[in-house]
């Protein structure tokens, strides 16, 4: 029997029970759409986080304070206490200590309420050194960054992010204007170029001031020398692991602790990406797994309805056999029907998935990534589910003895 005839017959049979066929497809549709959306969301989140981490700068190392597990009780004070100081940063900047480090930028952060002549705005205030620009691979769009001289003099100068600039000075250039940060007066000397990274933390909404100024006028920490974290850039990608070791070894030595008692952690971009990837990967797997169960349920729905269909059409099967349909032809007939249910449900599910991704992306701010391979895979999976679900009903139909089938009233 030709394929064209088989498909024509299958479509006619499904069309004769239109409502039932649609409801059966709905099961597959929901399953496919759910899997596509959850996996797409996971991949989108992963891509977003990865690009955010990569936009931090190249060959970046980040030293963050951490409570050592062995002496946590002794140190106490929670996460507010930083174990890192400007002295650590100064030591790491010494080429004899860490020869593969190109630049060091200690940073301290605080929340700041900003005020220009016309408006107020809340942003993140960062105290750092002139090296921040090269370590974070950022550029100044207009004006200039602060100098070592201004750092040494604890000058009241600030460089602001592009978005902060737009918010505070909607008309005219911010450079040369005065803003108030937490009650302290600062002169804006530069505006950063857009970082271009999207996502959860906004790199374009920030105020940078010299670290010394921050410590003297804005810091809420008891210790004026403590910093929130230290950003370092390695000389190049090849020596990054050597740089990593130098940073770790020298900090352990200067803090007088063993590796097990370390009160800081050093991460590279690669390790951050790896951590983020593994977390989003697990989440994607979990959500995708749950969505996959709904797909399985859809498949069982197809099997169920095909079994009903076989027992309803016993006479038809008997007649077809009497007229010369072999068991193989009958089996093929029912498999094709189940396959069509699967693939039509899958196609509709892909449609809903793509539509859902288009609607969700602007709402949640994360690109729901629906890739061509994922779409093709969804089609293959839905066809496969239809066929697998059809195997048992189809072989039941194929095994019907023609005389029993014809006799049934």
């Amino acid at each position, binding site marked *: 029997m030709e394929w064209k005839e088989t498909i024509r017959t299958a479509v006619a049979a499904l069309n004769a029970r239109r409502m039932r066929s649609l409801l059966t497809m709905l099961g597959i549709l929901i399953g496919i759409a759910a899997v596509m959306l959850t996996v797409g969301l996971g991949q989108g989140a992963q891509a977003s986080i990865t690009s955010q981490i990569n936009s931090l700068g190249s060959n970046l190392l980040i030293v963050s304070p951490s409570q050592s597990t062995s002496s946590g009780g002794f140190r106490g004070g929670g996460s507010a206490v930083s174990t890192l100081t400007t002295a650590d940063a100064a030591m790491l900047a010494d080429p004899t200590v860490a020869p593969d480090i190109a630049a060091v930028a200690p940073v301290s952060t605080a929340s700041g309420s900003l005020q220009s002549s016309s408006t107020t705005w809340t942003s993140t205030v960062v105290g750092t050194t002139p090296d921040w620009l090269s370590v974070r691979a950022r550029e100044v769009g207009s004006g200039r960054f602060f100098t070592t001289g201004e750092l040494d003099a604890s000058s009241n100068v600030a460089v602001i992010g592009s978005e902060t600039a737009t918010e505070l000075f909607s008309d005219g250039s911010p450079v040369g204007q005065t803003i108030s940060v937490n009650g302290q007066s600062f002169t804006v000397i530069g505006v950063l170029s857009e970082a271009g990274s999207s996502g959860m933390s906004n790199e374009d909404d920030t105020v940078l001031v010299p670290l010394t100024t921050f410590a003297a006028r804005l810091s809420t920490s008891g210790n004026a020398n403590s910093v929130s974290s230290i950003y370092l850039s390695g000389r190049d990608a090849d020596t990054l692991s050597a740089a990593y070791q130098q940073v770790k070894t020298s900090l352990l030595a200067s803090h007088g602790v063993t590796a097990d008692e370390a009160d800081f952690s050093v991460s590279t971009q690669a390790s951050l990406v790896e951590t983020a990837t593994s977390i989003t990967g697990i989440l994607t797997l979990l959500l995708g797994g749950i969505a996959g169960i709904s797909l399985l349920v859809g498949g069982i729905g197809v099997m169920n309805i095909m079994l009903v269909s076989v027992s309803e059409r016993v006479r038809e099967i008997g007649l077809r056999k009497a*007229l010369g349909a072999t068991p193989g032809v009958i089996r093929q007939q029912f498999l094709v029907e189940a396959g069509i249910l699967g693939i039509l449900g899958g196609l509709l599910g892909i449609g809903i998935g793509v539509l859902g991704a288009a609607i969700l992306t602007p709402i949640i701010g994360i690109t729901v990534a629906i890739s061509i391979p994922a779409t093709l895979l969804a089609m293959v999976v839905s066809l496969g589910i239809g066929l697998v679900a059809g195997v048992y009903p189809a072989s039941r139909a194929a095994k019907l003895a023609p005389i029993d089938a014809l006799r049934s009233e």
Partner: protein
Amino acid sequence: MSPMLDMSAVRKTYSTGVVQVEALRGVDLSVDQGDYLAIMGPSGSGKSTLMHIIGCLDVPTSGTYLLDDTDVSKMTESQLAEVRNRKIGFVFQQFNLLSSLSALRNVELPLVYAGVPAATRKERALAALDRVGLADRVQHRPGELSGGQQQRVSVARALVTDPALLLADEPTGNLDSHSTEEILGLFAELNEAGRTIVVITHEFEVAEHAKRRVFIRDGLLATTDAVLGGVH
């Protein structure tokens, strides 16, 4: 010339649980090309079983059955399907037309399973429908046709493969007397033109139209004249 249908010592035993039912107990039957045979018998006589075996819908437990010189008594299900498709045209009491398909598509069905290309299929189906006088009803569905017309569609379906044997099982059981005459007239015409026909029936009015009659009782065939004489 060897007979179109040649059965010898055909037995069929069904086992229903522990009880063995002997539906056929050694049937010898021979039908020549161009013959028109009526097989008569009451219900429970083994009439249906004989029809199933003649129609290759079932195989005998023992004995041999040659259909058009082919031994079909030991065939597999797939082989039997092919024999049914090529050598037998069925006409059923219940018509057994597919209600969702047009008369034309119903008649085409055996050709679909024979793998005949679409254009040839349509041509042959139209010719068969024309032969039974339904050329103007080819696009009608079974539900839009009278009982007599539906049975004529199924005769067209039986003829479309040009089978060795036209096998009719109570073909007039669901028809009024006018339609019965129509169908029996059609059978007579077809037989006149050389078609071999076997009709299974319990009605003398139907059997009378045949050239030959055999009677089945308790799984055995009896000679026609004796049985008819006995009943009359």
